[in-house]
């Protein structure tokens, strides 16, 4: 796995604002948000449902443009989608008409030279790593939910992005599968140390994965707090359960999250969408 990514994928966000307007109604989803995502680290964004985390992820990925403010990756401004920032969504965005292998190879194929032998090997290794090598010839519909998520990750990682964005990727999976996916993903990160932005609403998931947790407020979204997660790796669910430090961080995070969750509970869920 590539270690060269350790110093790439640094995201600086300054004064980010995103407003949505639907006719006369205007909704400010993100207001003057400042944020840094450090390279080589796994940053988890946690916040109540509907607070705008997905919007932020899309802005960083380049699928959306901010109303005002600036986002840079390694000093370069973000102006649109690109291979250096790849995102895995909540719902499956796999190409159902392509096999598992074809899906995974899609990114590398888009270059002028097409799929080189080294890349084919790389994709094969990734599929092996997530346990999908056996299913290379199957179609996504034949895969289980967890396997589809893994395939989506492989498809993104095959492009060796500087920044890997995941928006609640394990949502909707049953508890057991979710736990296994979390452990697996933590393991993958520990090998590659690729800069990762992980969005979730589950605090336990955040603790297992994060080097740093950023707690976000409800709409309009700002940074509520940054929590350094200085727990040793590798982490397991069992050790976290007993760790004093882990519970400390969890308490602090819940303290911050609860009032925001209450606000979210009381207000209409989503932003005004265009």
């Amino acid at each position, binding site marked *: 796995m590539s270690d060269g990514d350790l110093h790439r994928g640094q995201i600086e966000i300054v004064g980010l604002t995103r407003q949505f307007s639907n006719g006369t109604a205007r909704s400010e989803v993100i207001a003057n948000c400042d944020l840094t995502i450090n390279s080589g680290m796994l940053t988890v964004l946690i916040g109540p449902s509907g607070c705008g985390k997905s919007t932020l992820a899309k802005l960083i*990925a*380049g*699928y959306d443009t901010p109303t005002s403010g600036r986002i840079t990756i390694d000093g370069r401004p973000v102006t649109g*989608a*690109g*291979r250096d*920032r*790849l*995102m895995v*969504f909540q*719902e499956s*965005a796999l*190409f*159902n*008409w*392509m096999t598992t292998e074809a899906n995974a190879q*899609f*990114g590398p194929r*888009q*270059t002028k030279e097409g799929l080189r032998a080294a890349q084919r090997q790389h994709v094969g290794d990734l599929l092996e790593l997530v346990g999908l090598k056996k299913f290379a010839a199957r*179609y996504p*519909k034949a895969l289980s939910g967890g396997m589809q998520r893994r395939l989506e990750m492989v*498809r993104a990682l095959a*492009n060796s992005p500087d920044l890997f964005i995941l928006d609640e990727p394990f949502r909707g999976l049953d508890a057991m599968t979710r736990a296994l996916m979390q452990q697996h993903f933590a393991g993958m990160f520990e090998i590659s140390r690729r800069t990762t932005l992980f969005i979730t609403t589950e605090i336990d998931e955040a603790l297992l994965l994060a080097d740093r947790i950023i707690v976000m407020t409800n709409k309009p979204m700002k940074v509520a707090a940054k929590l350094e997660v200085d727990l040793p790796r590798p982490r397991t669910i069992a050790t976290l359960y007993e760790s004093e430090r882990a519970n400390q961080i969890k308490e602090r995070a819940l303290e911050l999250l609860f009032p925001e969750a209450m606000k979210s509970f009381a207000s209409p869920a989503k932003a005004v969408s265009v």
Partner: protein
Amino acid sequence: MSTVAMQPSVRFDRKRIRANALGRGLLGGLTAILTWEICSRAPQLFGFSVPYIGVIPAPSKVLVEWSILLNEPSYWRSWYQSFFRVFAGFGVAFLLGVPLGLALARSKIIFGALFPVFEVLRPIPPIAWVPVSIIFWPTQEMSIAFVIFLGAFYTMTLSTMNGAREIDPALIQSAVSMGASRWSLYRNVILPATLPSVTTGAAVGMGITWEVVVAAEMISGGQSDRAGGGLGRLMWNAYVTGNYNAIVVAMISIGIAGYFSSALVRLLGRQLAPWAAR
């Protein structure tokens, strides 16, 4: 209390289900024909005549007429002519409708410019185009083909457009961010994603085409049998000459032809888009 005998396993055996479906289909068909026959003979059997169904020529007579027609080359020529028109009209509708549908879905400019015109023309039934078609097109065949083309064209375009519109934006976003060129995006994402809608539109369009071909043939089938022809023409001639049995033969022939055409389209659809099978 009787014990419920549990079968060791409920096997959803594909063959059995298909056989059952076929059996049910045959049973339904035979029952319908039997009822029809009985109603036709009602005056002799029961002493009263059944309205509507009783007036239609009996299946027995129809079958006799059919066996006569099967030996006449003009009957088979009718099949060929209708089929040719249907597939020609349908083919052009497909070749024009799919790209137009895609363009309408993907380009706001094209949509703004063309869709209003399209939507105003669409409610005009293909039959209403017959006079214009006869005036406009040089040959009679082309007039008929044009009317048939219209039948399928609107359906193909709309199905394709809606299919292309409904593509999950996440698919497009993923492909674009992985560096897909415009061409690659169309070939690898948009076209395959739209394909299930295209095949559905094609199956529906094929049915409409058959409705139109019959009417088109009846009207503009020409004064001479040789020039016009087709199953619609056959039926009309049977009516005009008072051969009521042949009318029913022609009707059922059209039904069978339409069924096979649609089945063919569905089969092709399943081959092209196996992932969309339910």
